[in-house]
């Protein structure tokens, strides 16, 4: 076991993992399933079913359109009600979705064939193909297509594969529960991942506020060659890809467009490893995931949720609101997205639903910046949020770019620590958008 270490910078948060003792249960089949064609980073999938079609669980309803993309599968059996625009919780705008009315039978598509239990029988290419066909994406939140991650460029050898079980966001327990309950499956999937990229060494990284998960994983990896466990002192945002690589390996990923490949590392979430294991063993594509429903609900729980299940259905399953709801967040309280409505569905990247009561919602007016530097001290990327935000607020985005606004990972530590409660992340995000637009405009001018 590697020595416990922790991030320099960042913050220590009250983790509030109130649902950590709750075993994962199946949430059930909702009355409506909404499958967005865009549930991943990259090009949206193209719908291949039409209203009136009967689909079965695991059947492809959207086909991947390019290399960086992922197919979408029906999560249960039923009739396609519509292919239409629905409000997308992450993109925060209407987006194409296949709407299915489930028949409640959960019949599995005949195209699903049980796979192998033996990784040694599979070539790296086979594993990548399985990941691609299963529509696997990173389940830690970013939803980057796994098949792309598993195919590093040939000139960039991978020597370490990190399995991310840090789960540094407060409240969320889906990864922790998965590690406790499915440690062996996770390790199976992890070994397949390591084989796919040819990494001789694998490290399972877990924060020390999850002792049960640490014990389970320690047991599961014993006797597996090349796999170690690294226990990290709890600190946010340690579960971020760049931060994890820095903390565990002491390597720093080059600034965007640099990727972990560039320093010989690939990082995947434990949920992804589990989904890959399932895809290899049973042939079942990614149709469900574990979602933590927590915060101000009567019974905070961890659910196995069919993709496309509405958030309102999950909140009902968790006993309904406790108190007057103020905010419903998809994801954790630090990086999650607050939802304007709860009829939106769970997507592949949804790690949790956190409900905050009206009293917990902070609506304070921001005070003027006093340049205390608390954001600078905490920034895990050692950026200067104070200046980026100040230039962004003034609209001088070129200056913000000089202070590397584009490097920002939007972890929210700066805004969390700001004593003046300034919306730093929002300001930085604005600068990033403006800079990207400017670049696009320049590129267009150059080409046209």
């Amino acid at each position: 076991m590697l020595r416990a270490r922790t991030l320099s910078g960042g913050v220590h948060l009250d983790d509030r993992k109130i649902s950590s003792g709750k075993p994962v249960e199946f949430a059930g089949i909702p009355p409506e399933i909404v499958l967005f064609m865009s549930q991943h980073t990259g090009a949206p999938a193209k719908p291949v079913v039409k209203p009136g079609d009967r689909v079965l669980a695991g059947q492809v309803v959207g086909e991947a359109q390019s290399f960086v993309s992922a197919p979408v599968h029906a999560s249960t059996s039923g009739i396609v009600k519509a292919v239409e625009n629905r409000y997308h919780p992450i993109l925060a705008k209407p987006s194409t979705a296949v709407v299915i009315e489930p028949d409640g039978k959960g019949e599995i598509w005949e195209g699903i064939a049980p796979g192998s239990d033996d990784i040694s029988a599979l070539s790296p290419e086979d594993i990548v193909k399985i990941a691609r066909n299963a529509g696997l994406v990173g389940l830690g939140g970013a939803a980057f297509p796994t098949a792309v991650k598993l195919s590093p460029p040939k000139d960039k050898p991978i020597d370490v594969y990190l399995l991310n079980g840090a789960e540094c966001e407060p409240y969320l327990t889906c990864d922790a529960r998965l590690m406790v309950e499915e440690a062996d499956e996770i390790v199976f999937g992890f070994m397949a991942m390591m084989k796919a990229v040819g990494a001789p060494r694998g490290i399972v990284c877990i924060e020390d506020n999850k002792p049960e998960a640490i014990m389970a994983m320690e047991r599961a990896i014993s006797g597996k060659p090349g796999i170690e466990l690294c226990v990290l002192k709890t600190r946010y945002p340690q579960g971020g890809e760049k931060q994890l690589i820095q903390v565990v390996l002491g390597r720093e990923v080059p600034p965007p467009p640099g990727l972990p490949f560039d320093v010989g590392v690939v990082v995947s979430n434990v949920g992804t490893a589990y989904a890959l294991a399932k895809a290899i063993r049973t042939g079942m594509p990614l149709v469900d995931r574990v979602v933590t429903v927590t915060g101000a609900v009567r019974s905070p729980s961890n659910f196995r949720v069919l993709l496309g299940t509405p958030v309102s259905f999950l909140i009902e399953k968790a006993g309904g609101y406790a108190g007057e709801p103020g905010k419903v967040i998809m994801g954790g309280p630090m990086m999650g997205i607050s939802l304007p409505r709860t009829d939106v569905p769970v997507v592949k990247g949804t790690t949790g639903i956190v409900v905050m009561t009206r009293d917990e919602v902070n609506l304070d007016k921001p005070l003027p910046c006093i340049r205390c530097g608390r954001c600078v001290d905490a920034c895990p990327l050692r950026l200067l949020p104070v200046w980026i935000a100040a230039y962004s607020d003034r609209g001088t985005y070129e200056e913000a770019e000089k202070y590397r606004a584009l490097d920002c990972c939007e972890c929210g530590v700066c805004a969390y620590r700001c004593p003046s409660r300034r919306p730093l992340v929002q300001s930085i995000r604005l600068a990033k958008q403006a800079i990207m637009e400017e670049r696009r405009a320049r590129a267009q001018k150059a080409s046209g």
Partner: protein
Amino acid sequence: MTERLVVSPSPHWKTDKTVPALMLDVVIALMPAVIASIVFFGWKALAIILTSVSSAVISEAIYEKAVKRDITIKDYSAVITGILLAMNMPPGVPLWMPAIGSAFAIVIAKQLFGGLGCNFVNPALAGRAFLMAAWPLHMTRDWLAPGFFGGVDAGASPTPLAVLKGESSGVLPGLWDMLLGNRAGCLGETSIIAILIGGIYLIWKEVIDPRIPLGFIGTVFVLTWVFGKPGAFFQGNAVYHVLSGGLFLGAFFMATDYVTSPVTARGRLLMGIGCGAITVLIRLWGGYPEGVSYSILLMNLVTPLIDRVVVPRYYGWKHEARKEKAL
């Protein structure tokens, strides 16, 4: 849908350490020094502090009312300015001086530049510098010998720094008296122990960065040890230099002012060292016996430059920097 949901950008959690909370911590940390000043200089000290604080708060309220800004007296920053200014005054000054000094500090040095967060020098020190220029005799002569709860001598008493510099004849107080505060000096600067208690509280609560006070005091110690004695090296009376004057007060409470100190950790260390160097320059070779407040004011002015120059190495830029060098 029946629920009305708030939509806002992430993060959805914010710290409880808001500006007023941090400022209140500073006020709390100043209490030991306030109490020590009352113990050593009696009711006169209390009167100066109360006058200074109420003048600061009232002038902030009046100004903000006049220009129709939000009234910000509840964030305690004016209270701190008032206390700090009082701490920087000789105990024998007439009461109208803290009143005018605080009003100047708040209206001219802070509000006219845009209020909280926009002042470019520490308001309390600007107020002190103004009083020093306006009524220099009061600010340099109105020392009182300390007594216990108002047993204050009427006669002027030389400060240890003036003695060290050879400007006044007198005997240096014992080390123990220096630590406790049983010596002549400004209200709040005399009791090192009281200031240390406050300073350690602030560091423990992570309100201030220890780099500034440590860099400041450390630099003064080293430089006065090396150059303190004319004609000889390494024989200066560094301990007395460190303990006398407003060094501790300045290092823990005034150089650490957020608005006027750098935002990066390295920048703050630089600020502390710069303050220390200028203080020693003024003390040993300058025209005044004390240089703490001017050194902080000067470094306040340099802070924007430090912030421009001292930029951390951003994450992942190790390789890029090397590439650039190779080109």
